[in-house]
């Protein structure tokens, strides 16, 4: 029973250091309202009611952003949330339009980092996959993947490093090719007799499709043909399907 308290202690320490820090006064970001008016909601969502209106020309402070909503504070201390569509028409105090730094589809190729999760099938076993990649160019990126393989007869982990080539990155639905190598650890289930853990090197070749959803989000599906370099006479070939993956770039 000691561990939950240490966990909460850590959380409390985190709250005390990070939480109130978000309301620092020295790094305020002021903007001018350029729309005829901006409606303030009580929360960051269209379901929360409008309780205040700020007219054109007034100066407000951006407190924070959550998803597509901005928390604003007026000079009279009224604090509420406005959607991104209304914020596009606001101005910096210099008169320039406010740059919301949106990673839209047009500029997502300039984003270098990508990460995501996927679920699938590894030779009949269930597979949970976490991946992250860095793009050298518009087409070519290096990708690191961790798989947790949970089967009926054996469980395993694998970690692979490979190259990924997206053929036409500017298309909304774009195919890609991938090639790499890695390591796999297999543990036969404890209910089986003669269970020996194995560590093998693997190599893979595969392909997939990525689909640009919106903002910074993508869906992907992938097939890999793995070759397991076993210590036996024959190498093993394993089909790996990532049925559905979700990725975002940053």
């Amino acid at each position, binding site marked *: *029973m000691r*561990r*939950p308290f240490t*966990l*909460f202690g*850590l*959380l409390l320490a*985190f*709250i005390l250091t*990070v*939480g109130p820090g*978000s309301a620092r006064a020295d*790094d*305020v*970001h002021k903007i001018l309202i350029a729309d005829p008016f901006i409606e303030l909601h*009580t*929360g*960051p*969502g*269209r*379901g*929360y*009611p409008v309780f205040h209106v700020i007219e054109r020309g007034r100066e407000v402070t*951006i*407190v*924070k*952003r*959550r*998803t*597509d*909503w*901005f*928390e604003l504070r007026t000079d009279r201390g009224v604090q509420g949330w406005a959607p991104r569509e209304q914020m596009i028409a606001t101005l*910096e*105090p*210099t008169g320039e339009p406010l740059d*919301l*730094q949106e990673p839209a589809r047009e500029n997502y190729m300039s984003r270098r980092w990508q990460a995501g*999760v996927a*679920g699938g099938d590894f030779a009949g*076993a*269930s597979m*949970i996959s976490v991946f992250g990649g860095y793009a050298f160019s518009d087409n070519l990126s290096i990708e690191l993947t961790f798989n*947790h393989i*949970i089967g009926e007869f054996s*469980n395993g982990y694998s970690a692979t490093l490979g190259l990924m080539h997206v053929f036409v990155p500017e298309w909304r639905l774009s195919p890609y090719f991938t090639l790499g190598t890695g390591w796999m650890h297999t543990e036969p*289930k*404890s*209910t089986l007799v003669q269970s020996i853990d194995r560590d093998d090197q693997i190599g893979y070749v595969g392909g997939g499709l990525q689909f640009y959803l919106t903002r910074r*989000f993508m869906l992907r599906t992938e097939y890999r043909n793995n070759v397991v370099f076993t210590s036996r006479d024959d190498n093993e070939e394993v089909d790996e399907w990532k049925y559905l993956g*979700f990725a*975002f770039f940053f």
Partner: protein
Amino acid sequence: MEVSRLRLLFLIALAATTLPGCALFRRGEASLPPATTEQNAAEPVTGEPSDKPIIEPQVERREIKHTRIDTEDFEVGAYVGILSIEDFESNVVYGARLAYHLTEDFFLEGTYGRSRAGRTSYENLSGSADLLTDSERDYTYYALSAGWNALPGEIFLGKNRAYNTAFYLVAGIGNTTFAGDDRFTVSGGFGYRILPADWIAVHFDVRDHVYDIDLLGEKKIVNNLEAHLGLSIFF
């Protein structure tokens, strides 16, 4: 002579009454600022104009700092609750949670929890026949889930307090390590989140963890229900 003397008297009287009045009027003109005339005299009408600008602009230059907008899409927290492990009693579960809010409607969530299994009724009745060793009774799980904020709203405490809330549905996949094996687990459930401030949230969650187990020889589907209370902060 009589007439001219009278006329003289009349004229003197007239002068005596009107002249001081004129002086009164002239007094206003005399108090005009002499500065204008002096300036006119000092500045030559023709010749080189002075270098001084006619209007001295008094513009306050603003110090513009393009500070980054503080984006708070991530949420980290911890929770404590009760997990009912099918056949193995209910026990305390505690865990950690990391969420990423994609839009106002959807979020991704990763959870990791630990609990410990108790004894089955069979083990208690039979006395000493233990189905699991001590270390096999450790129960850990992780889940990668997607969530939907189905019902955003507010809660009203008293007359003057309103807090933002959301009722959400969650479904995901993950793994459960129990009885010495990893088990692919599908989980789902619902939760209710109350935000006392815009950076902190209190959660109440109910989850069902479903997996296959063949511990007693025959494969069967197991439902483990969990209810927990958690605290998280946005960053």
